[in-house]
Every structure is written in C-alpha cells, then in structure tokens.
C-alpha cells in the first residue's frame, strides 16, 4: 500500500499525535494549502475583449465565485484570476481551477470536469458542489469570452 498523505494510516496517526488538530483534519492538506495560500486571487479588466468573466453562485450555501481568464491571439489562456467568497472547499476549488487552466487552450479548458477538481483536492461528498461551482465558473468565463469574440468578428 502506498503511503501518500491521504492514506488512512497516516491520517489516524496524525489524529493521535495532534488530537487538537482533528477538526482541521477533516479538510485534505491540499485544500488547506489552497485555502491558506490561494493562487491567482484578484481581478482582470472585465471590459477587456480578451478577458472572459464567469460569475456563479451556490444558492444552497450563499457562496459567490468569480473566475476570469485572459486569452492571447493564439487562443491560449495566459492568465486566470479568481475571487471567491465562501467555504474553504470553494476557495480551494477555484484556486486550483485557475492554476490548472493557465497555459491551456480555450477548447482544452472546456474539458475540465468537477470530478477532476474533486479528485485532485480529495473533496468529501458533501463538498462536491463546491467543485461543481468551479466548473460552472470556468464554463461561464469561457462562454463570456466566446461571446465577446463573436461580437468582435461581426462588428
């Protein structure tokens, strides 16, 4: 059996060594890392025609997530920023998504699935909707970018 950080043996050992850390142990270390050191927090100019903005919300928990991408002439995503007001899993999901999406093309980025995000961050079932939110956000940003580009072509 591989001894990776998510293995149950290590988890239970951690619980024994640091009984007071049990509460935070319910989040996977990767989630905590993204939560404590979020990547790419901030905003891009939403009026820039090379920027796509996705704004989504989770009605059941009141989280709001904004995800923006900047695309260069060759269709490659050169920058991504996010701002999320919500739980740790929602912040980690959007942070991870911005990291993942950078350097991908618009078409590649469309293929990101929430299951991938959830797997990467080892989200528990009750937090799966946070990764869905991130998937919705990136899709909304990509579609916003495409709509802008179409307008550009027709005008």
């Amino acid at each position, binding site marked *: 059996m591989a001894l990776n950080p998510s293995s149950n043996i290590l988890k239970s050992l951690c619980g024994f060594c640091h009984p007071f850390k049990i509460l935070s142990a319910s989040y996977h270390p990767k989630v905590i890392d993204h939560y404590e050191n979020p990547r790419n927090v901030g905003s891009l100019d939403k009026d820039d025609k090379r920027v796509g903005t996705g704004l989504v*919300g989770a009605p059941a928990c009141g989280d709001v997530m904004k995800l923006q991408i900047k695309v260069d002439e060759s269709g490659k995503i050169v920058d991504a920023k996010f*701002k999320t007001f919500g739980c740790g899993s929602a912040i980690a999901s959007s942070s991870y998504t911005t990291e993942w999406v950078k350097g991908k093309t618009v078409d590649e980025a469309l293929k990101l699935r929430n299951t991938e995000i959830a797997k990467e961050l080892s989200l528990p079932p009750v937090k799966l909707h946070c990764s869905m939110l991130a998937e919705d956000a990136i899709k909304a940003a990509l579609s916003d970018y495409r709509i802008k580009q179409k307008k550009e072509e027709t005008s």
Partner: protein
Amino acid sequence: MSFLIVARQIKNILRSQPEAKYHTIINKYKLRNIPYNLLIKYASQGYNQKVCWKCGIERKNFSDIFCSQCNVIQMPSERDNYFKLFDIDEQFDIDSKILKDKYKNLQNNLHPDRFINRTEEEKKISENYSSLVNKAYKCLATPLKRAEHLLKLSGSSIEEKQSSVDPGFLMEMMELNEELDNNVEPEQLRQLNIKNKNELERLAQSIDECFKHQNLDEAKQFVIKMQYYTSLGNRINAKLRELGVVD
C-alpha cells in the same frame, strides 16, 4: 445477522401486532448482541404510536410526552415536522417567545438528567427526544432555517445543483463582499452590519408575505437571497470579532 434484517423484523412485529410491547421486543433482541442504540433506533422507526410502548395501553393524546397510565416517557409523535413537534402553527411568522417557552417546557420534561434513575430504554428515548427538540428549536428560531424547513415541508427545498439566481444579484453580492474586504475600520463594519441586518429584515417580511399567499416559487427566490445575505453577515461578524468588537 445483519442489523437491517433485525430492524425489518422488529418493524414487522410492531406493525402486525400493535399490542406487542416495545420493550419485550427490545429485550428479546438484546440477547443477540446488537448494539443497544441501534436496536432502539430501528425499533422506534416501526414503533406503533397508538399504544404506550411500556404498558401497552391505548394513548389518548399522541403529543403527550408521558403515558397517562404508567407515566413513562413516550417517543416523539413527530420527527419531520418541527412545527408539529412544538405544537405551533405551520407558518413563517411565529412568536419567538411562545417558541422559546414551548422549548423550555419540553426540555424541562425531557432532559436526560431527569432520567438518571430510570431504565435504559427511558434514558435512550429521553436522549433522542431531547436532541431532536434541540435540533428543531435551532431550526425554527433562525428565520433562514425556518424558511428552508417550510419549503422542505411543502416539497420544494433548495437543491445544491440548482442553477444560479439572476446575474445582477450575484454581481451585487460580489460587490458587497468586496466592499467588506476593503473596509477594516470597526465603525464602517458596524454600518455594513446594520445595513445587512435591515436587508435581512426586509427579506424576512417578503418571505412571510409569499408564504401567506402560498407563493412558494417566489418565497424560494427570497430564501436564496437570504442565504447570500446571511453568509455576508457571517463574514461581517467574523471580521468584527477579529477586531475584538463585540456587539
């Protein structure tokens, strides 16, 4: 033997023979090394409300906590509808004082401390009943949770996957949250808090109106908005606490 099979058997016995006494069944299965709490849980699911589980006498009033004959604690007559559990009208606009009085009254009678010298069954029932009452009180005492409970009872709860509310509203929430991030002065935070509380108050009134007119879809939209403003309020309060400001 699997617990589920036992649970099914207990339920069947209780259903087919209403006169069967709950505690004799429990005693029978206790011998099979089944964890006591599971046994109680499963048995109480199929438990016949109409008779006292202990003495088997027919119960006149199901909402009575104790059996009129042997004075032993009964299982909750209602688990899903918190309004019925507290015997109050099923509406959004409730009198919080009446709710609190009912809650205190119930807990006075139900608290596990009162059952220290009683049998295991009675202790367990009081524990379950008392924690159910706590949960129900927490739900009904909070306007947002109460509204969600009402929606759930009318079969239109808010789904996690539910698609987003209107973009304009989301933008507004984003801006309010950003405004909060830029405000670090306690006085500004207090102002934001007051503004937020007023908004929540307005939403509560709208929700009440909707429920009164049986307008569930619209109520749902307001409840969702209330959820966003509640999250914002939690963030404001967390920030105030960080600054050491207590209301």
